[in-house]
Every structure is written in C-alpha cells, then in structure tokens.
C-alpha cells in the first residue's frame, strides 16, 4: 500500500461529525468561503507570501468547490474521499504553477474561518479532518504527479482525433473499428471511455483547455448517438426507466451512456440530462411512472443533492426502484447504499441490475 493509500485508510477512522456541527457548517458555508477568499486577497494586498493575483479566479473556484465537497464529506463521513479530493486539488494546481505554500495557507484559512465563525464546541469537531489533512500534507504534496498513459494505439488515435476536434474523422474511425470486429460495447468500454478519462487527466495536467475537453465531450456524445442508432434494437421490454443526472450535476456523458445502453437493451428510456431541478425530475417521474430511476453523480459535492432527491422519490413514488451510479457514488459506495435499491459502478451493469430489481 502506498503512503497516500495508508493516509486514506487512517482517515476512515476519524470520528463522525455531529449533525448539529454539519448544520452549522451548512449555514455558514457562503460566509466561510468569503472569509477564505478575503484572506487570500488581503495576503496578496500586503504581500504576505507569494502573490496569487493571476490565479485568484482559480483560487476562488477551488475554495467554493472545496467547501461544497467538505460539506458532503462531513455529511457522509467520507474522510478517505477528502484525502482523494485534496490530492486532486494539489495535483491540478501544481500543474498550474501554484507554489507549495498555497496549500497549508488554504487549510489554515479554512480552520481560521471555521474557528472564527462557528461556536467552539462545533468548530473543534469541524476542524479535526482539516487538521488531519494538515498533518499529512507532506505526503500529499510529494505524490502530486500523475502518470497518464493509454493502453493501445487505437485509444491514442481516437483521443487525438477528439483533441483535434475532427468530429467526422473521429466518427469514421469508430465505424472502422466496428467494421474490424469491435462490438459497440468494446468500443465504448475500450476506446471512448479510456480516451475521455485520458482527456480529463490531460486537463488536470494543464496540457489542454476546458474548451478542448468540452469539444471532445460533444464529439463523443455525437458518436454514442450514432453508434446507438446504428445498432438494431433488441426486442422491446415492457419496462420504463428514467435516467438523470442529480440536481447540480453538469457531467452528463456517463448518464447518456447508461441511457443509450438501456435503450439498446429494449428499455423505454426517459433521459432528463444534466442540472434538472429535483422538482422537475419528480414531475417527469409522476408523468411517465418509470419502474426504475437511475441517477448519476460525478462530483462529491453533489452527494447531498443525490440523497435528497433519492429520499424525495422514495416518498412520492415508493414503488419505483432507485439505482445510483457515477464517480461520486462509487467513491462513497458504502454510505450511499442505504439511499438506493442498488448501486452500479459501470454502465453495463445497469440493465441486469434493473431487471433484477423488478
């Protein structure tokens, strides 16, 4: 086990935080983010440490996202995930030329803001995981570099077409792979997903821009639709499924893959895409009465809204079966189980899991 993994397993043993402290954190979160941002602005103004002026926009984003993730981590006692998320932040910012001293300063700014804003008995609880991070920061800072390699030339070729934004060529390439014997599943699992993961890593490594990543996502989405439309549908099943990203979730490619896959397996699929408000999702459910509802969440910060929506559906549509998936759900697997009838880690599990629940 490497040292980062050792820290993650030690973090799992941190005590749970009381509901009252979490509620205080939730109420104070906008103020805390503001205080942390102000601290960096003031430090910049008075030249305390390395100036961050050119990075201030990124820094504000990071503070907001870290706060949201912190709330989810505390709510579900996902302290190992906190280490993972923080390691991701460290790595992403190192690739953007951030200095090492930013990270202890950021943790301390959070600790100071919590101590200053929330009453002592609760603030003491809330800072424990941050202190743990602080104590283990050197290990995280030593392990920031990520290696990103694809497994084969086909993945590489496809990824390059995506990065060059050659939609037509990328599509032709996938069709040629189908012709050479790849199944649609092989193509999704063996080419599309690894290439998109790699593109995510390249963004993390600051080698491509957000717009490069978005263009690649759009082309991949187009290819998925083309692929699915070209596959003869299996016999229609008498089952309906609603597939949706949870409220606030912008990453919809995974949900789209699941929706397209279930459609190819004969399901009647209602796909509501990304960022739909929970009341709208509930309306769609009551209108179409799907037997299965599949919700995906990629960001840890969206876990509270995942749970809220799941609870709401269970209340309004108790007969419907709920399946949860997506990167955040997989990371928080052990905590998410009670909020769903089943969890999936891979889109290909969706069909059999859903059938089993009916």
């Amino acid at each position, binding site marked *: 086990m490497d040292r980062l993994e050792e820290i993650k397993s030690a973090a799992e043993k941190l005590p749970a935080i009381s509901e009252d402290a979490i509620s205080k954190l939730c109420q104070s979160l906008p103020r805390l983010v503001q205080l942390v941002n102000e*601290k960096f602005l003031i430090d910049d103004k008075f030249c305390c440490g390395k100036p961050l002026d050119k990075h201030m926009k990124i820094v504000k984003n990071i503070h907001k996202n870290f706060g949201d993730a912190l709330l989810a981590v505390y709510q579900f006692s996902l302290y190992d995930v906190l280490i993972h998320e923080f390691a991701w932040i460290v790595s992403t910012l190192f690739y953007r030329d951030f200095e090492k*001293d930013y990270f202890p300063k950021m943790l*301390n700014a959070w600790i100071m803001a919590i101590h200053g804003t929330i009453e002592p008995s609760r603030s003491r609880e809330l800072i424990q995981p941050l202190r743990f991070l602080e104590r283990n920061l050197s290990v995280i800072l030593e392990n920031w570099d990520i290696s990103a390699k694809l497994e084969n030339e086909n993945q590489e070729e496809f990824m390059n077409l995506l990065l060059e934004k050659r939609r037509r060529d990328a599509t032709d390439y996938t069709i040629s792979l189908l012709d050479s014997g790849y199944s649609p599943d092989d193509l999704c699992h063996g080419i599309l997903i690894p290439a998109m993961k790699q593109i995510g890593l390249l963004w993390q490594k600051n080698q491509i821009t957000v717009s490069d990543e978005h263009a690649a996502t759009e082309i991949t989405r187009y290819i998925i639709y083309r692929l699915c439309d070209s596959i003869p549908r299996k016999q229609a099943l008498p089952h309906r499924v609603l597939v949706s990203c949870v409220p606030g979730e912008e990453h919809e490619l995974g949900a789209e893959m699941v929706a397209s896959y279930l459609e190819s397996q004969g399901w009647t699929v209602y796909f509501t895409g990304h960022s739909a408000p929970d009341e709208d999702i509930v309306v769609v459910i009551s209108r179409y009465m799907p037997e299965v509802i599949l919700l995906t969440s990629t960001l840890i910060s969206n876990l509270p809204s995942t749970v809220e929506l799941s609870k709401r559906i269970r209340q309004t549509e108790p007969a419907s079966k709920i399946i949860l998936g997506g990167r955040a759900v997989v990371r928080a697997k052990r905590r998410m189980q009670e909020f769903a009838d089943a969890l999936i880690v891979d889109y290909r599990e969706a069909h059999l899991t859903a059938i089993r629940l009916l």
Partner: protein
Amino acid sequence: MAKVAVRLNEITREFFDGKQIRMVLKKTNLDIYTREFTVIAGPSGSGKTTLLTIIGLILTPTSGRIMIDDKDVAHRSEDELAAMRMKKFGFVFQNADLITALSVAQNVLVPTAIQGAPVSAESKRAMEEILAQFGLASYAYAMPQQLSAGQRQRVAIARAMINAPILLLCDEPTSALDIESSTTVLDTLKRLSQDENRGVVMVTHDPRVFPYADRMIKLEDGEVIDDSKSGGEEKHEE
C-alpha cells in the same frame, strides 16, 4: 525575520469571584512574534482579554513566566512593569478614548508627555511622520470631535505607535466601527504588523478581522484550543 516579542511560559491566572477561586487562564505556553498579525478569538468569558492584558504586563499572572528579551518579567515591581509597558507595548481599545480637550497631535504625543520630560523635537517629528503615514497629517491640529469614528481610532493607533512598541495590543478595536472605517483600521494594523520589529495582537469577536490574521489563537474556558498559523515557510527566529 520574525522574532519572539513575548514568551509566555506555563502562565495561569486565577480570580476570586466572591465565592470561589476561578481559573480564568489555564496553563498557557505561547510565543508571540513580531511581523505577525495575531488574533485571539473565543467566546465571552473564554479568557481573551485576560491573556491580552497578561501579554501587555497590565495583569500579573498567578503563576508562570513572561519572558521579554530572555528575561522573566512576570513578577517585577509595578514601576518596572510600567516602564516596560511604556517602552514595549502600544495599546488600542474598542473606544479610541482620545482626550477631547487636546488636538490630534497632542493626543498622539500623550504617551511621551506622561514620561515627565518635555516633548522632544524628535517625538514631534515622529508624531508628524506617523500622522502622515496614517493619512492624518492634515488633521494634526483638529480636535477629536471633528473626526469620524474610524479616524479617531486611527489616531488611537498613532498614539499607541509613538514609542515604537514591539507589540501593538488591541482589544476589539473595530467592533464599534462601520465596514469602511473597520477596513481602513484593519489595513493600517495589517501594514504595521508586517514590520520585523513589530507585531500586532488583537482580541476580537469580529469575523471581519479573521482574514487579516497571520495566526489565530482560539480560547475556550481559559484554554488555548487551537493555534493556527497562516501557512507559508517563513522561519521564526528563536
């Protein structure tokens, strides 16, 4: 390079509240540095002001040592403590407490005047420099009641600075100020705290202050429950 301005070693303080002896400051070990904006935070009754007044040699601890320049000064005579207070510390309180019968310039010179000797030309020059530094030069001969609350508080800081103290000790200096005045006062204190021969220690409830802190000492029931420093790799000189 930051230096230790005051070292508290195993400091405790008890009070008799009429019925029983209460420990208002439990065994405390702290180094207070120059070139730092230290905030002491905590709920009412947590011991913040007791700690500040012990650091500033106003209150004598029940036990423990206060080290300044490597010498224990905790239990020196009142006169010696008063002389040391005058030389080493500047005090700023919630209300500026300027003497209304004196001009701004005369208020700033009060700490030099009360030492007995006539105000020297050097002190006058220092007063003019400090007022200019604080953007108050044109108010030197104004009366306190002609100034805004924020300006009065800056005059109080100027007064605390006149003897070039190693620590400015501030008790809730912004809590009576509006946002704009508070920001100006805090900016002034932050700037002053960046000098390697001077530090700022502030007791406060005011969350507007926290982003200014290089270090936050959190007290609860007379005990330091957290001591956070704002990152960085700067080394302190022992």
